[in-house]
């Protein structure tokens, strides 16, 4: 849609108008599902497994049922429904076997939360504890217990995913480009290393919460703190075999999501409790502890990369093997595996590539989408690896990256050709490198080192990501003009804090030529009222819904012009409009206001034409297709957003403690639609990335009990943890099919923060870190190992490392 953008005349796009819902949030008036109470509402609680893996011998619910005030009790025995996004593998309540610590085995609904809690505690479960499989690499061994012995019987999306029955592999994604063995044979260097990271919790400030009412005639109303109302509705109906007309999903303000609320979670169970309780509405809100283990997390990853480099420093071949730890259920992890697999080489051209990516079941809380959809995890390894490769071949890491970045004409892993408008990773790298004074310490920094005894290091890391979505992903917008000439925007895209509503309002105001004050977008979403949007995920919202909005504006104006043409006796080509009226270009006083046209134009005698003005816009991703399952080849990317982080870190060489003095982040966003919302995403994502880099992660004991399900034991960054200086830079290479040239950037700021810090720590104190998070003790341990760098490299008979 770039051809329609004339940047110097933009009035709304590119500015920083007030966030639409800010005042409501600042005054406590914004309503979240957590805040809602309905007449007759019951409160739910669940009984959870204290074991990672156990056979359920029996459940005695009689004491709970006898407790006054208890209105419904459910166990898995009554609920034969399975849910799953891509592999339908999860019962609403465990049946036969529990597969992870914290899994729900029974549920109650009662008059008060206190009664519900007591009732859940009174439910007695007789377990036969079984040995769990906890490590995803162990789960691949021949004698490993099977987390899902019935894997072969589960429904799954077979066009895209490949479960391997009889194993713990929920999916294998493959990619084959060129001839990787031939490339290795021609390489001057072969460099191989493995990188790991644990599971991490999203930590939305509002935990998962849903209210459901299963009414007469199987009509179901659901209020939920979720990202994707249409996905919840559709999957709910699939589970219960209901027509889509019978389920209505409503989403008011959402207190943070970050991918953890992308799918379907509490809604079906809460609805079943409502049905059992005779149709009274039931509310369930997870406690913070339940958020860590009843609800899903981010998958752990083991990433092995082997890179072949030519004498001139160009990557000629790369073999990448990913082992994703799904936990007990496949949920989004299989798709994280797929999306990471086809992006696994980062924003670099690799002529010969081989990727095997596995999703592996274990007896742990399950993985789902999390901001970055796998890219935060694999870029940790990839960008640490690029640093290693540069070091081994004796090239500056920035130069090595610049040499190998995707450029116009480059071919991606999946065979897509990069164009001048795809975006510019090299420029992002240059911007951050310049900002941190990459490559040398300033006199001031050297003096600081002397004064503090600390060591200062500078590191960079690049990143990229395309939306992980079906090739047929679509969005739609309905614009309804009110009789005063103002416009209501209906969209299924949810506002989860990312600023979708404000940015869409800017796009609509810009395209209509109206004042922003005339545009209204409701903060809440409703599948009965709002037109379809696939999901609020993948950094695709602004691109798809923004394009739909532009088309809806054009439709609305065309309809207004049609009626105005009759009123003014002019053809569309002779008319123009401002924010108030449509007029004849060469006779500006011959005009009719939008207010007069909005619900139908009435002549003085009452005779009328037209009717309510409603603009409809729909947009579907263009030219994408499923990737070939054997080779991973095809076009899967709506758009690629490239970026880079540059970091200056100060490390105490005695203790391993470190502090980020400066971080600069640059993203090629195509067009910054709202400068301050963009900066909010950039800084917020960066700090979330800082948490992943420095301190967050799930810790288990040997029986698979989660040991740190709280903010005391699983610290997240506070205001005290901020880098001293934070810079956010927008590079703007317009996306030809983006609204006003824009592309998505919601997830990207979190990606590659960790490797940039790891690379900076390497420069500061010379220690190699291959596992994140990098806690001070990890840095200390790494510093105190005497092992030389060559130990990290696989010895190969064929031209080993030159060092």
């Amino acid at each position, binding site marked *: 849609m770039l051809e329609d953008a004339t940047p110097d005349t933009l009035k709304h796009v590119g500015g*920083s108008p*007030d*966030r639409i*819902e*800010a*005042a*409501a*949030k*600042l*005054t*406590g*008036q*914004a*309503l*979240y599902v*957590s*805040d809602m109470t309905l007449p007759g509402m019951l409160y739910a609680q669940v009984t959870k497994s204290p074991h990672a893996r156990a056979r359920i011998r029996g459940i005695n619910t009689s004491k709970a049922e006898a407790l006054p005030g208890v209105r419904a009790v459910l166990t898995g025995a009554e609920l034969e429904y399975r849910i799953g996004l891509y592999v339908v593998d999860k019962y609403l309540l465990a049946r036969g076997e529990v597969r992870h610590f914290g899994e729900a085995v029974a549920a109650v609904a009662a008059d008060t939360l206190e009664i519900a809690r007591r009732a859940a505690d009174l439910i007695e479960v007789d377990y036969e504890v079984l040995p769990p499989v906890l490590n995803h690499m162990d789960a691949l061994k021949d004698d490993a217990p099977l987390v899902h012995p019935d894997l072969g019987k589960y429904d799954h999306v077979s066009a895209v995913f490949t479960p391997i029955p009889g194993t713990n592999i929920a999916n294998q994604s493959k990619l084959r480009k060129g001839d990787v063995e031939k490339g290795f044979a021609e390489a001057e260097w072969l460099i191989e290393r493995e990188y790991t990271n644990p599971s991490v919790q*999203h*930590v*939305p*400030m*509002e935990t998962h919460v849903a209210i459901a009412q299963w009414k007469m005639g199987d009509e179901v109303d659901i209020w939920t703190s979720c990202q994707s109302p249409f996905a919840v509705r559709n999957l709910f109906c699939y589970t219960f075999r209901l027509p889509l007309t019978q389920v209505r999903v409503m989403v008011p*303000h*959402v*207190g*943070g*999501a*970050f991918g953890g609320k992308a799918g379907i979670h509490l809604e079906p169970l809460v609805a079943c409790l409502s049905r059992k309780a005779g149709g009274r509405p039931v509310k369930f809100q997870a*406690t*913070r502890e339940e958020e860590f283990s009843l609800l899903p997390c981010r998958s752990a990853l083991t990433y092995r990369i082997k890179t072949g480099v030519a004498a001139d420093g160009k990557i000629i071949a790369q073999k990448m093997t990913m082992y994703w730890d799904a936990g007990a259920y496949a949920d989004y992890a299989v798709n994280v595996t797929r999306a990471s697999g086809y992006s696994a080489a980062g924003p670099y051209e690799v002529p010969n590539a081989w990727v095997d990516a596995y999703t592996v079941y274990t007896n742990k809380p399950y993985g789902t989408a999390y901001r970055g959809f796998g890219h935060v995890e694999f870029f940790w390894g990839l960008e640490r690896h690029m640093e290693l490769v540069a070091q081994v071949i004796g090239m500056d890491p920035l130069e090595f990256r610049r040499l190998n970045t995707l450029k116009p004409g480059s071919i991606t892993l999946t065979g897509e050709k990069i164009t001048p408008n795809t975006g510019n990773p090299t420029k992002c790298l240059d*911007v951050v490198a310049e900002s941190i004074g990459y490559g040398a310490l300033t006199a001031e920094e050297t003096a600081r080192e002397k004064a503090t005894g600390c060591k200062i290091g500078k590191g960079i890391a690049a990143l990229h990501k395309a939306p992980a979505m079906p090739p047929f992903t679509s969005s739609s917008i309905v614009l309804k003009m009110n009789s005063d000439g103002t416009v209501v925007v209906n969209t299924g895209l949810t506002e989860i*804090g990312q*600023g979708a509503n404000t940015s869409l309002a800017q796009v609509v105001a810009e395209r209509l030529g109206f004042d922003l004050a005339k545009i209204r977008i409701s903060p809440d979403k409703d599948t009965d009222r709002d037109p379809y949007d696939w999901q609020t995920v993948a950094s695709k919202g602004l691109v798809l819904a923004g394009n739909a909005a532009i088309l809806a504006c054009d439709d609305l104006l065309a309809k207004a012009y049609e009626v105005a043409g009759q009123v003014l006796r002019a053809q569309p080509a002779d008319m123009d409009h401002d924010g108030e009226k449509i007029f004849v270009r060469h006779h500006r006083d011959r005009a009719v206001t939008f207010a007069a046209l909005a619900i139908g134009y009435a002549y003085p005698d009452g005779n009328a034409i037209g009717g309510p003005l409603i603009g409809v816009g729909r947009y579907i991703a263009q030219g994408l297709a499923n990737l070939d399952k054997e080779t991973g080849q095809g076009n899967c990317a709506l758009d690629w957003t490239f970026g880079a982080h540059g970091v200056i870190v100060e490390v105490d060489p005695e203790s391993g403690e470190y502090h980020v003095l400066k971080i600069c982040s640059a993203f090629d966003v195509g067009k*910054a639609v709202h*400068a*301050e919302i*963009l*900066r*909010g995403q*950039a*800084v*917020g994502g*960066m*700090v*979330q990335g800082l948490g992943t880099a420095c301190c967050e992660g799930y810790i288990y004991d040997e029986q698979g009990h989660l040991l740190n399900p709280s*903010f*005391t034991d699983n610290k*997240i*960054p*506070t*205001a*005290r943890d*901020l880098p001293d200086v*934070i*810079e*956010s*830079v*927008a*590079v*703007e290479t317009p996306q030809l099919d983006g609204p006003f040239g824009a592309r998505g950037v919601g997830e990207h700021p979190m990606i590659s923060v960790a490797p940039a810090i790891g690379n900076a720590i390497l420069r500061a104190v010379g220690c190699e870190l291959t596992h994140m998070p990098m806690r001070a003790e990890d840095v200390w341990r790494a510093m105190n190992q005497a092992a030389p760098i060559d130990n990290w490299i696989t010895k190969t008979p064929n031209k080993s490392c030159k060092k």
Partner: protein
Amino acid sequence: MMRITVTVNGQVYERDVPGHRTLLHFLRQDLGLTGSKEGCGAGECGACTVLLDGHSVNACLVLAPEVDGRCVETVEGQAKDGKLSTIQDAFNRNHAVQCGFCTSGMVMSVQDLLVRTPKPSDDDIKEAIEGNFCRCTGYLQIIEAVRDASGRTEGKGGLKHA
């Protein structure tokens, strides 16, 4: 049950409450003031921050009977005569709000700070909101908002274009 009398945002309320009811649940359930949020229920996240006799507290760690005869201020009492307070206005102007779930608690912590320290340093600001977790903003625009609310004009950030 215990009878308590408490002044919330200048209004007097008399209620019977069970002894174990927290101030947070008293505000949210008994008075319908749902602006204060529950993010953890364990005094770790600060989403429920309110002022008790002018001092910020985690409302989830205070029992309702403890506030008998005392004054509570919540986010609902900050805007006056249809106008945002200075702090709320600065948060709005500086885009310090994203999902909004931490916002009420943040506003109350900052209120406490600025009453005591009208010209806070960045360290003062960070210390004041250290107990308020925000997962969306990365805190920077919140810190900028507090600088702005305190009349400091330096340190205004902004997106750079390359």
